[in-house]
């Protein structure tokens, strides 16, 4: 039979259900693939071979069924897994083994999905390249000298190097969509509150949202349906039906759909190749029957500064829980030093440079005297950005823009220039501040590297994302990563 690691999730399930292969064979093929290539890519921080094979056996024994039963998945290391290490890419949680599963993890397991392991990420999901992982960067399978995006670069690289057909990411300012864009994969940020945050290690609680990643649109929709839905353990979880994402991914008809191109997310600073692929894809949507117009969202230009005040402020508060008492690292406890000194030494040792930068930035933005000018003002701008979206929905059904202004840049290129790194998120942040769903779909290559098109939709209308993604998938041939490093 064909190489099991090259199949989509849907094809994998069909092969298992029809008896052509078994879930154990599929799991083993992916574990072998990881052993063969992850030395080059470094998508995984931890591979749970025993857990994966045990789960696959349960599927083969008929204990677990469903449209994705037996399909392997790569889980971002920000989501807790009972008995399996969860580091969030940080030294401060090195060696911590959670005593509980996140709701996302529980739902994956109940659906018979086989979790292969935990994927690399920028520490605490702060970054756009995975270079801020305390455990070393992930490499982009399209070109190992380039970034796989961030913070969920491990998940996107695992997909693009055929180490898993499915992955979970989390998106606070673009950490699902930008990695999808630069690896030529599909990544969807659901509506805020659409997927439970219970067991998702918090970075910025008003923005964090987990979502599905895959190589095909239908695979992403099927995974979306597994993880989404109300959870009483997350008080911000939305108590409403999950939008019909799978149906939309199958229908993929954009006839009459009103598509708005965001005026403010183009022009200077966007690579010509990115603009070219984006423009062609919009033209394709028009040919498929969508109507296209330009829409102005005048406050989107202020989304980046608003985000880099709000997210670090929330992070500085959330990360206070790493106090050298309850979990993870403790440094300098010599029996003489005070709790406070041990705490400060532990945090200085356990957090990396980017996390420290954001904690200090957030502490500053929240301090008295600056609060109104920075944090307060940023929250007001958040309202204005939301109003830009609401005004747009009066004339269009979805908004589109490039996912990211550039293709994957070389590792190291922006490491010493935090502001340049932050600008990677310029197109993705507005949707986080608004809270509506957004996705990145591959729309071809620029200079041999993938380009993503971002679709943004009204709150709880993720079905529209899948309509557009499906239509583009049919019209634009999937660019297969050459993986030239494999044979060299």
């Amino acid at each position, binding site marked *: 039979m064909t190489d099991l690691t090259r199949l989509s999730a849907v094809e994998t399930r069909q092969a298992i259900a029809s008896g052509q292969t078994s879930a154990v064979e599929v799991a083993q093929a992916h574990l072998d693939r990881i052993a063969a290539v992850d030395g080059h890519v470094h998508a995984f921080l931890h591979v749970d071979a025993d857990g994966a094979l045990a789960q696959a056996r349960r599927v083969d024994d008929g204990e677990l069924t469903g449209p994705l039963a037996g399909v392997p998945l790569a889980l971002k290391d920000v989501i807790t897994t009972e008995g399996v290490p969860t580091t969030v890419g940080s030294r401060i949680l090195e060696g911590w083994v959670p*005593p509980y599963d996140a709701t996302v993890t529980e739902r994956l397991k109940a659906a018979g999905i086989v979790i292969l392991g935990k994927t690399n990420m920028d520490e605490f999901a702060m970054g756009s390249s995975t270079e801020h992982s305390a455990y070393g960067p992930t490499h982009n399978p399209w070109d190992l000298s380039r970034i796989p995006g961030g913070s969920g670069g491990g998940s996107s690289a695992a997909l693009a190097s055929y180490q898993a057909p499915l992955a979970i990411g989390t998106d606070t300012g673009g950490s699902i969509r930008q990695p999808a864009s630069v690896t030529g994969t599909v990544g969807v940020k659901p509506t805020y509150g659409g997927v439970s945050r219970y067991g998702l290690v918090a970075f910025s609680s008003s923005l964090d949202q987990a979502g599905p990643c895959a190589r095909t649109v239908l695979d992403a929709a099927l995974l979306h349906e597994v993880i989404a839905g109300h959870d009483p353990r997350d008080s*911000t979880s939305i108590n409403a039906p999950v939008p019909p994402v799978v149906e939309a991914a199958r229908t993929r008809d954009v006839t009459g759909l009103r598509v708005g191109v965001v005026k403010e997310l183009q022009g200077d600073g966007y690579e010509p190749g990115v603009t070219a692929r984006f423009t062609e894809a919009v033209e394709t949507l028009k040919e498929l029957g969508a109507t296209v117009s330009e829409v102005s969202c005048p406050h989107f230009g202020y989304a980046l500064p608003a985000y880099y005040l709000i997210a670090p402020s929330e992070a500085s508060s959330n990360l206070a829980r790493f106090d050298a008492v309850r979990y993870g*690292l403790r440094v300098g406890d010599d029996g003489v030093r005070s709790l406070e000194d041990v705490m400060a030494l532990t945090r200085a040792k356990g957090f990396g440079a980017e996390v*420290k*930068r954001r904690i200090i930035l957030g502490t500053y933005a929240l*301090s008295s005297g600056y609060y109104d000018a920075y944090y307060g003002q940023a929250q*007001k701008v958040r309202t204005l950005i939301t109003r830009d979206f609401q005004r747009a929905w009066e004339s269009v059904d979805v908004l589109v823009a490039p996912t990211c202004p550039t293709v994957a840049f070389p590792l190291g290129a922006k490491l010493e220039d935090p502001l340049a790194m932050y600008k990677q998120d310029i197109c993705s942040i507005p949707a986080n501040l608004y809270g509506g769903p957004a996705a990145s779909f591959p729309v071809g290559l620029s200079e041999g590297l993938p380009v993503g098109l971002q679709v943004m939709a009204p709150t709880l209308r993720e079905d529209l994302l899948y309509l557009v993604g499906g239509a583009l998938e049919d019209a634009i041939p999937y660019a297969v990563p050459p993986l030239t490093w494999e044979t060299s």
Partner: protein
Amino acid sequence: MPEISRDEVAHLARLARLALEDSELDKLAGQLDVILGAVAQISEVTDAADVPPTTHAVPVENVTRPDVVTPSLPRDAVLAGAPAAEDGRFRVPQILGDAE
């Protein structure tokens, strides 16, 4: 004029319980100055004056549940992840100084 001084960064680091090295403070002060210079453009948004702040993307009312005891994580499983535990509790470094 810089947005933030090295002394101010050192003060913030103390507030945030981060025992930073001198070299880290030097580097951070410069970087934060650049970042704050960029985010300060938020003040240009003059039409924000009379706008209510958004704290959360999706407005939710207070969420309550019946006041019923439900199972929590086993104590030993939680303490197993702690850096130090003793007698079924988290063990912490000394909180009071020598004089007390």
